[in-house]
């Protein structure tokens, strides 16, 4: 399994505040990895470290085996769409494509960029300051894709979009990903958006990695248990969260092995419920490797 992004003990401090602490993770090549977590969990910092906009205070980050460097060769391999999808307001869409062409050399894919924007009916002669949020996000994504990067990093690209624009944007993105070897790192607040789109999950909480792993594996190893309000917790599971009413108790659990307990009914868990369970229980966590849970 070849690795696209790997971090070891990665930490970043701004002034006296640690934005990211002891972050160790790896994302295999070709995956669409979702980075979720509450505000201030370090998502933006992680992504900016991955594309070389920031340098680690401690630890290391490597993209396809190399630390991001401030040179043309290293920058060519990553595409980045920042939060708020910044563009030059006074420049037209066509100007942006020209900027991309001039700054990226042979790797830049002018044809597909123009075709993409034409398909989305984005007017090339309009200044980006006059575009809608959804159109700006599409122009940003187009710029990032036209670089033909190996790693595409998207920091909350849909945060400012309405639900329809959000769906269009993500569908477009998935179409592009399916047609290439691209590895994607994508953060979002809206977890429902990520379901069925991401196959790898990183949950950041309080500047640390809380959960890391393949989405299918995580869904298979977690479940919601419904059982008696006063019964003992079944063996062989780790409880992530527990909710009790007068009559019954509902557990979100990670199963370490097969579970047989007639008093508990097991239900499959959705990605959203899994993420919310962990976000609501900062002490719980699951990481791959010999150490298992933390």
């Amino acid at each position, binding site marked *: 399994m070849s690795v696209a992004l790997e971090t070891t003990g990665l930490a970043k401090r701004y002034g006296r505040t640690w934005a990211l602490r002891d972050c160790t993770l790896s994302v295999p090549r070709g995956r669409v990895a979702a980075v979720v977590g509450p505000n201030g969990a370090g998502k933006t910092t992680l992504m900016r470290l991955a594309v070389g906009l920031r340098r680690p205070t401690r630890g290391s980050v490597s993209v396809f085996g190399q630390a991001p460097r401030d040179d*043309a060769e290293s920058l060519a391999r990553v595409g*980045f769409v920042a939060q708020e999808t910044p*563009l030059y307001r006074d420049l037209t869409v066509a100007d942006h494509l020209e900027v991309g062409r001039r700054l*990226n050399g042979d*790797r830049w894919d002018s044809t597909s960029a123009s075709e993409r924007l034409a398909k989305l009916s984005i007017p090339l002669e309009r200044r980006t300051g006059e575009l809608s949020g959804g159109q700006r996000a599409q122009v*940003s994504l187009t710029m990032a894709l036209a670089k033909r990067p190996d790693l595409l990093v998207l920091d909350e690209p849909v945060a400012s979009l309405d639900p329809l624009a959000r769906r269009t944007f993500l569908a477009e993105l998935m179409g592009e990903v399916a047609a290439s070897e691209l590895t994607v790192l994508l953060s979002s607040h809206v977890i429902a958006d990520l379901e069925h789109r991401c196959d790898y999950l990183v949950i950041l909480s309080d500047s640390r990695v809380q959960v890391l792993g393949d989405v299918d594996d995580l869904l298979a190893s977690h479940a919601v248990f419904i059982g008696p309000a006063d019964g003992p917790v079944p063996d062989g599971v780790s409880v992530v969260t527990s909710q009790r009413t007068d009559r019954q108790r509902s557990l979100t659990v990670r199963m370490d092995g097969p579970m047989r307990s007639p008093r508990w009914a097991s239900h499959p868990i959705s990605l959203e419920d899994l993420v919310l369970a962990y976000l609501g229980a900062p002490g719980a966590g699951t990481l791959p490797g010999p150490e298992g849970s933390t």
Partner: protein
Amino acid sequence: MIWLAWRQRRGAILATAAVLAAAAAVLFLTGRSMATTFHADGLAACIANLDGAKFVPVSGGCQDEAQAFAARFFPMRLLGLTAFTFVPLVIGVFWGAPAIARELADDTVSLVWTQGVSRRRWAWTQLGCVALVTTSSVGIVAALATWWYGPLNAATGDRFQWLIYDQQGLVPVGYAVFAALLAAFIGAVTAKTVKAMALTILGFVLVRFGIAVYLRPRFMEHLERTYPVVTERAPNRLLGDWLYGGGGPGVGAVFRANGERAMGGQRICPPADTACFADVGRGAYNLELFHPADRFWTFQAIETTIFLAMAIAVAAATVWWIRHRRV
């Protein structure tokens, strides 16, 4: 990269060109009216007739004509003084402050810093572009000002004086480029355009003042000249020498024949007027410290070089900051 830097500024460059064209028209009309009067009144011919003489008759030397001319165009001098003094600072800050600060504030840096160019190249191109547009816009104003001041310089002999010297020749360009790159640096550090403007104005005024007042008189060793109190020929004030009196004992002062300092300032007495020199004696003499007028361009070159060197240092600091502190 150059294309982007140019494209980002195209609108502002065109707007600046329009403003400069309007200002140039005003300068041209007023300057031509001064030049016409300068020749029509016979002042030009009178000064040419002096032929650069170091000493001229006390009651001659075109002084009356020159004073009439200077008085007539006094409002013009005030206008020039207010306008030209601030032009390099304003233009420099206008080009420099937003250059980096606006990109940081809008976070367009996260777009451009993830394209296939290094920050080093991006930063040097941006700063080079700032220096270029500042040089061209202020260069035009300074060239016009130099021409505009010609008749006034000749009629007042104060081309070398503080504030007048600062508005013509090469120095405005040096001032402006320094102001622009200082503003770009502060913008790179603060990421705020308005703050960069305010801090630049403060820093620039301090540096400008310090260099003009403390350093400029020391660019070269000053000259001394003595001439008698009782005389019919006094120094030609229209030559444009830079006197700086009042600085200390012996600077611009009157001495008795025995070398004892009698008073500060200057005294000139016709031989017949014995009352005029009764207190200092017939043998008394004036002493002046000065930089001769022909050092004007040397001083301009020295001061411009100082400001350009500071501008380059500030630019290097900006690039360093962008590469090592904005991470």
